[in-house]
């Protein structure tokens, strides 16, 4: 008895130990990767930041080709923020609307079909969205843009921008479509888990369907929708290729607050200049921009996680 036990224990020991070590190693790799991303970007950005002759945070200049480095992220930050925020303003109501339709209005069979179609949207590669925005959506919306600018042009937000339709608004609309499936899927998930008795109690008290949604479904799902929106925002902030293809680059310095302006986001700036990473100083400027993008998306995703966790507890 005791010998067979010993035998059993030794087999268990050898295989178990190496397998466990493998699992731990994989976990360590994941943690180190995230750590390294931040550290490496910071280490390589610092020398260029030291040599930067203008304010990194408030300047809109970007001259890194010559001997002296002059680069600031104010312009990039503005374009990144405005495209993402407008995208969220457009996407969240539609995403919540579809999530409500799927979970509260139609039978489950129909709901899952609609859900499947929206999920398919998430499978479309971003370069395809970019191509579509550049060649089809932009030109299609051109007359609408002209009209909007004629009527509301006195507001700076709708002021004069670039000639082409590759403006902030087109980029925002495309970003909105890209984040829609993310926000919609997560909202659908929380709405579907609304306690059955809350719904039935509201209906039994004579609430209309909307009143039931307002008093039972939305309070229950609110923080889930917020978390979903933050995740969508994180995705929009970092989206590269679609924005790069659509948005016209401008040569004028300073910030044009119009939705019809062109410009560059952090991600599109880096991708646009990928072929020019020749000297370490020059590359460092782009890495610094990438570092800011990393920090911003990190913060947005961390907030999303905190909100989502609070909901669970």
């Amino acid at each position, binding site marked *: 008895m005791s010998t067979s036990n010993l035998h059993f224990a030794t087999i268990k020991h050898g295989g178990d130990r190496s397998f466990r070590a493998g699992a731990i190693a994989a976990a360590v790799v994941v943690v180190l990767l995230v750590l390294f991303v931040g550290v490496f970007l910071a280490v390589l950005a610092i020398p260029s930041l030291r040599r930067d002759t203008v304010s990194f945070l408030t300047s809109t200049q970007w001259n890194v080709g010559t001997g002296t480095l002059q680069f600031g992220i104010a312009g990039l930050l503005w374009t990144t923020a405005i495209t993402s925020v407008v995208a969220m303003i457009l996407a969240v109501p539609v995403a919540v609307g579809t999530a409500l339709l799927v979970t509260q209005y139609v039978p489950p069979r129909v709901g899952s079909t609609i859900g499947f179609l929206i999920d398919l949207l998430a*499978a479309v590669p971003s370069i395809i969205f970019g191509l579509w925005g550049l060649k089809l959506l932009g030109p299609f919306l051109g007359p609408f843009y002209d009209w909007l600018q004629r009527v509301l042009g006195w507001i700076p937000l709708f002021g004069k921008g670039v000639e082409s339709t590759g403006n902030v608004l087109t980029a925002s609309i495309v970003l909105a479509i890209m984040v829609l499936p993310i926000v919609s899927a997560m909202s659908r998930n929380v709405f579907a888990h609304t306690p059955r008795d809350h719904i039935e109690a509201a209906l039994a008290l004579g609430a209309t369907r909307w009143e039931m949604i307002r008093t039972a479904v939305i309070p229950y799902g609110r923080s889930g929708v917020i978390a979903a929106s933050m995740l969508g925002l994180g995705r929009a902030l970092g989206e590269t290729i679609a924005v790069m293809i659509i948005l016209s680059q401008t040569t004028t310095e300073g910030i044009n607050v119009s939705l019809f302006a062109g410009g560059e986001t952090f991600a599109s700036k880096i991708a646009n200049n990928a072929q020019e990473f020749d000297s370490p100083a020059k590359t460092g400027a782009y890495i610094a921009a990438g570092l800011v993008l990393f920090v911003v998306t990190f913060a947005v995703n961390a907030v999303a996680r905190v909100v989502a966790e609070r909901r669970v507890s």
Partner: protein
Amino acid sequence: MSTTTGTLTSPRGGRRAVDLVVRVLVYVSALIAIAPLVWILVSIVAEGLPAILSASWWTQDLAGTTDRRAGGGALHAIIGTLEIGLVTAVVAVPVAVMGAIFLIEYARGTRWARLVSFTVDILSGIPSIVAALFVYTLLITLLGLGRSAVAASLALVLLMLPTVLRSTEEMLKLVPDSLREAAYALGLPKWKTVVQVVIPTAFSGIATGVILGLARVMGETAPLLILVAYARNLYLSPTTSNMGTLPTMINSGRNVAETLPGYSRVWGAALTLILLVMGLNLLARGVARAGRLKDR
């Protein structure tokens, strides 16, 4: 349902009107959400179909062809996309699966699991361009290597890892503890329990996650722009500095004039990419469904 409440308690005009307005808005929002999908798919099929129907599309690269000349194909880009995707999966899948095993089989409920889980969340939120910059700093600036297809694959590993890890984790969670206990009772060591009982039970779910991760990675463009140069010729070696892929083929041709033959090739590449990615998505769905049937 509301009609069964009858006239006694039926809502008055104002409330009923609001209810109706919301109902309309909710249906309209679904139309708004689905319209772009239909528009994108229809226009890409319409513009891209002529290009991909020619036999040379699948058998030739673009060597010696210019945007002004018809002919040639996308073989270089198709092979490139598949190859980079494959290399990415070979690196990412083992790490992701072992990471998930760590979370569920070894560290469930511990502080370490929470830490790893948090970093996976952060990893899944990293923009692809940042992943690409990271690999650039590591391989090219620090180690002095050149751009290569492998470098692009490594950046894509960062994007595939969290997707596969999360889905594997979810699947391992679904494996009932009674199965593990039965295996232990039969004298199986823990690692054999995981390899021979837990993983096979969760296999279809894990495969679904891998296929979906692959679909996501094959459609990525940003890391390819930074880490490997686009080539019009077919290159097979993963260490080559130039390799064509479908996303970068679209990108490089996006400003070709509409009247030139190169323009239809851009849409052809877009259609090929969509077919590849959507095909993988449907395959994942099929695998997931087959797995569910087996469980029953």
